[in-house]
């Protein structure tokens, strides 16, 4: 598939999933795209999309899976509106030209299972992950995140892959935490 994302997608009333990864999509995501409110899964990885991710994404209140990594987006802030999609479990915006302070609303995505915001220029602390007690994979590497790792992260039993490389994170790791004690006692 080549060309732009058809604006008519916004007219779809029963569309649940869009998988357009690794196509040759160009241009911006049309504003009408965000009118397809029945969407649960959107995969736009590895295209040549430009423009920015609109705050209208908050209209997609059924969204569980959204990924648009490795595109040619314009420099953009991660819209605060993304935190309004509390149904989100998978969010992938690796190499999405995200810059600046991460929105406080990220903390509201407490169903998150997989978050990949690596290879951007995001700043701010990591306190938002304290409520991610279902997280399996957290990739925040190669950004400008600072502060310390929230102690809660060490207690999340599903946490599998944690990548925080190449940030400005300070502080240490607790010498003993519940998850570690449980494993060592088995």
């Amino acid at each position, binding site marked *: 598939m080549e060309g732009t994302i058809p604006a008519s997608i916004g007219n779809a009333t029963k569309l649940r999933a869009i998988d357009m990864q690794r196509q040759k999509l160009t241009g911006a995501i049309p504003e009408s795209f965000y009118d397809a409110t029945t969407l649960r899964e959107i995969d736009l990885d590895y295209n040549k999309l430009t423009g920015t991710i609109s705050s209208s994404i908050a209209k997609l209140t059924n969204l569980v899976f959204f990924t648009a990594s490795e595109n040619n987006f314009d420099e953009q802030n991660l819209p605060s509106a993304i935190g309004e999609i509390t149904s989100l479990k*998978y969010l992938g915006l690796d190499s999405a030209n995200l810059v600046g302070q991460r929105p406080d609303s990220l903390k509201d995505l407490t169903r998150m299972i*997989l978050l990949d915001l690596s290879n951007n220029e995001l700043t701010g602390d990591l306190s938002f992950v304290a409520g991610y007690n279902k997280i399996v994979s957290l990739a925040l590497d190669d950004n400008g995140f600072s502060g310390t790792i929230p102690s809660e992260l060490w207690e999340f*039993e*599903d946490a599998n892959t944690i990548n925080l490389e190449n940030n400005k994170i300070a502080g240490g*790791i607790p010498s003993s935490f519940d998850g570690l004690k449980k494993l060592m006692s088995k």
Partner: protein
Amino acid sequence: MPRNCSHLKFYFTALRLAGNGMTGAFPAAITSLPNLKTLTLEGNAFTGTVSCGSLDIITIGKNDDLECVGDCCDEQK
């Protein structure tokens, strides 16, 4: 990006912390976590001891006073 990983029930298979400004004693017991295969710590200022354990990948590099114990250590300095 994998869609379904909710079935996974592991605990830390990869812990990548390299290239930050982390300090303090690195809890040696972490390297004994049975599922941990990747640990990257270089570019921090951890102290204490790490052991190779069952790790497939470990990178220590420059840390202020972090001792490495095990067969994998020769490659670290």
